[in-house]
């Protein structure tokens, strides 16, 4: 099976030769291919080359366009620095809630960093055709609002000026929606949505303030004919009930959540994807801890699950440990 066939079959609970390896690589891929992080984040050719090399070497089944959280943020106008070999650092564009009025939605064709992502998708498509599923990416409206104003400030604004904050969320939503179809048209099979803050705000605010926005994003992904994948770093156990209705096809589960519990909650709604600890199991562990964790996730995740560490594979992970994920998946068949 090609990776794309494998992923599509698994999504529908059909037989596969091995369960798809969905590990998230960014800094690790750049390092593996011998590129500094600033180039990986700012030049689509470097990102594509690094990910293809890594996928071939480590048996990854997906071609990702993730690099850092600040693509949209920079395109909204925030100042961003690319330190040579570490993660980009981005200033808050919104310094006081009053600045929210100055933030305007943009279209991907007028952007810089999001357009670079479209170019990455096109290049994957040219180089790989239909061999791998290609994943585009957008930030969820709450995550993007936080990137623009700061998470603490976002929370205070939620209490003090909810109407104004909704305006910002609306601008972020409109922009996210603008950015979905062009990525699908360029060749993306999957659109990932990152909404990390969801794990820190608790179920009430999630339900009232984030979920409606996420639903609209996944409805648009569906309308464009792509597969929707939701990624929330952190502990989402309190959100599992609500996530049934979000409309994502694949929901990433970070390592703090019981994989069996997540599968049980989401069984008839989405594939779960996860979920061992990237730091203690993969980076600081051994090939044996990795194999054990993979096997446990396969046992717990049900017939539609995907396997990965709960969040990004850290840059300094020993290569043999990442490879151990693939080896375990192959030997399970």
């Amino acid at each position, binding site marked *: 099976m090609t990776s794309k066939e494998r992923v599509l079959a698994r999504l529908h609970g059909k037989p596969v030769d091995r369960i798809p390896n969905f590990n998230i690589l960014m800094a690790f891929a750049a390092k593996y291919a011998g590129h500094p992080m600033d180039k990986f984040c700012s030049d689509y050719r470097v990102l594509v080359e690094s990910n293809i090399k890594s996928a071939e070497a480590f048996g990854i089944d997906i071609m990702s366009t993730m690099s850092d959280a600040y693509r949209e943020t920079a395109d909204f106008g925030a100042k961003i620095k690319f330190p040579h070999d570490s993660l980009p650092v981005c200033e808050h564009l919104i310094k006081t809630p009053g600045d929210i009025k100055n933030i305007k939605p943009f279209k991907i064709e007028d952007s810089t960093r999001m357009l670079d992502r479209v170019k990455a998708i096109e290049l994957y498509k040219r180089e790989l055709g239909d061999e791998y599923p290609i994943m585009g990416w957008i930030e969820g409206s709450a995550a993007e609002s936080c990137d623009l104003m700061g998470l*603490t400030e976002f*929370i205070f604004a939620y209490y003090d000026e909810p109407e104004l904050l909704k305006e910002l969320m609306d601008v972020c939503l409109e922009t996210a929606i603008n950015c979905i179809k062009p990525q699908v048209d360029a060749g993306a099979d999957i659109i990932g949505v990152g909404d990390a803050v969801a794990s820190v*705000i608790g179920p009430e605010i999630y339900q009232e303030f984030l979920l409606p926005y996420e639903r609209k994003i996944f409805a648009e992904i569906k309308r464009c004919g792509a597969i929707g994948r939701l990624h929330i770093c952190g502990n989402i156990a309190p959100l599992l009930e609500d996530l049934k209705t979000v409309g994502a096809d694949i929901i990433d589960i970070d390592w703090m959540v019981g994989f069996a519990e997540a599968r049980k909650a989401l069984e008839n709604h989405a594939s779960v994807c996860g979920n061992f600890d990237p730091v203690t199991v993969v980076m600081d562990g051994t090939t044996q801890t990795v194999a054990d964790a993979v096997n446990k996730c396969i046992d717990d995740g049900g017939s539609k699950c995907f396997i990965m560490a709960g969040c990004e594979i850290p840059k300094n992970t020993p290569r043999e440990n990442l490879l151990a994920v693939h080896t375990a998946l192959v030997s399970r068949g």
Partner: protein
Amino acid sequence: MSEKILQEISEQLQKGKAKAVKELVEKAVADGVNVKSILDDGLLSGMGIIGAKFKNNEVFVPEVLVAARAMNMGASVLKPLLAEAGVEASGKVCLGTVKGDLHDIGKNLVKMMMEGKGLEVIDLGTDVPPEKFIESAKENDCQIIAMSALLTTTMAAMQDVIEAAKTAGIRDDVKIMIGGAPVTQAYCEQINADCYTPDAASAAEAAAAFCKA
């Protein structure tokens, strides 16, 4: 009577009602309630309850942040009075998230809890290079340098700050506190920092104790 108003302060604080807390504290002061008792049995006791609920996953970060903000509004009323009475821990802390790291919720909570204890906090923000910690500590005569890190990759920067403090000749003049999810007591000992605590309330307590000592 004073018990009732202290109870009310604690309750409003737990709801994050900053304005109500401030007004109640002012009223309590006007009514002649002991200021130390307003702080301990009203503000800090309310914050303690929220902190415990946070640990048990009964409330989440937003509730803690607004409660801490309410606590600080109340504490700002008490500050001059506590200073007069000589009960306030007075001290200066320079606090920041280390280089390469942009996570700041934990740091902000630590800041608010320390301010609640009457300490002055110089907030250096996120992605703070070692030189900046040192310069700021020297410039402001800080007793404490406090660092937060949420990434295993950026934790190492804490050691750089300790080295920089040695090079600058101020290592013996400041206490160095570290924290953030991946940081542990073992790591604190390994890099010869002075103090690690797992949460913001205990961080503030430890800082206040350093400043009294």
